[in-house]
């Protein structure tokens, strides 16, 4: 006679093997290790960038000066209000100080990179042009003329 309930007859089910689980997690881990970079700044402002299609890569980090513009985030400080602010070097600075801080960042660069230094403006989508214009005129005063409006990759119509 054929035994149909072969498994039921044995005392218990064999345990499900979880040996491949570490492999899967390691694959995820390696993925994150390769596509991300260590955070070197703590964002104090909201920073959702606009999108653009005609972008150029800023892959050489050693010649980039980053400036963040946006509303202060809630957790950074509660009494800063809603006005967009400028963040450089992990702290809020005023428009007048931008030149000084940019020059400071420039002076820490090696000599041969100073002429190709690029300022990356990372401004939030909620920012108005006024503060950007002020920022740009400050940068012109200190003769940092190469700027990059850092954006996400995507259709430009999404901004409207």
């Amino acid at each position, binding site marked *: 006679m054929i035994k149909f309930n072969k498994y039921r007859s044995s005392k218990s089910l064999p345990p499900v093997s979880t040996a491949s689980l570490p492999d899967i997690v390691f694959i995820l881990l390696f993925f994150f290790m390769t596509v991300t970079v260590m955070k070197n700044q703590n964002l104090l402002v909201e920073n959702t960038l606009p999108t653009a299609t005609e972008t150029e890569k800023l892959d050489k980090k050693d010649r980039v000066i980053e400036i963040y513009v946006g509303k202060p985030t809630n957790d950074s400080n509660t009494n800063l209000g809603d006005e967009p602010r400028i963040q450089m070097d992990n702290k809020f600075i005023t428009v007048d100080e931008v030149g000084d801080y940019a020059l400071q960042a420039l002076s820490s660069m090696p000599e041969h990179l100073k002429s190709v230094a690029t300022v990356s403006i990372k401004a939030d989508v909620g920012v108005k042009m*006024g503060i950007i214009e002020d920022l740009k005129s400050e940068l012109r005063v200190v003769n940092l003329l190469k700027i990059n409006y850092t954006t996400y990759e995507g259709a430009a119509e999404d901004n409207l």
Partner: protein
Amino acid sequence: MKNHRNPQEVNAGSMADIAFLLLIFFLVTTSIENDAGLNRIMPPDDNNAIVDIKERNLFEIRINDADLIMAEGDIIDPKNLREKVIAFIDNGGLTLEAEGYCNYCKGNRFADSSENPDKAIISLKAQRNSSYPVYVTVQNEVIAAYNELRDRESLRLFNTPYKTIYSDYYNEEINEDKKKVLKERLEIIRALYPQKILEPETVNN
């Protein structure tokens, strides 16, 4: 009987936990980088240089407080902006005999639009209350217009798109001799369609 016994299985359950801990550590300490954007070069900070620009060679784009985009006096849809900018740059409005006639232009050759791509200037003006994303969109469209024209000429002259030449030039795996050729090509194309984008001071209101 002793030899046929299965070897004891090592319990790997905790390995997953370790891997998860590592994964979570990387999730919190790293960020996915966004390091691409629109490159622009600002003019130096001296306003002594006054250049005489003919009205026909100037394409005015304005963004108002309500984020409406105005080009050449009309409010336009940003979708049509690229087309208009291309038509303006590529117009080549001089007559065949005149000096500076643009023989590679494929535009409509209107007498009231730009003389040749070298003279064509885009002026972009935003108000203090215009939003930044709209400004980026306009910049993007203007750069896209130039890139499209450069692509066309690059395909015609060298049979490769401008983008490929550009990215190859900055590719470190390409050897020096090849880079020289690429540089020459880049310069030729850039001379055909030089990017001239003007940004007058924003008016306070």
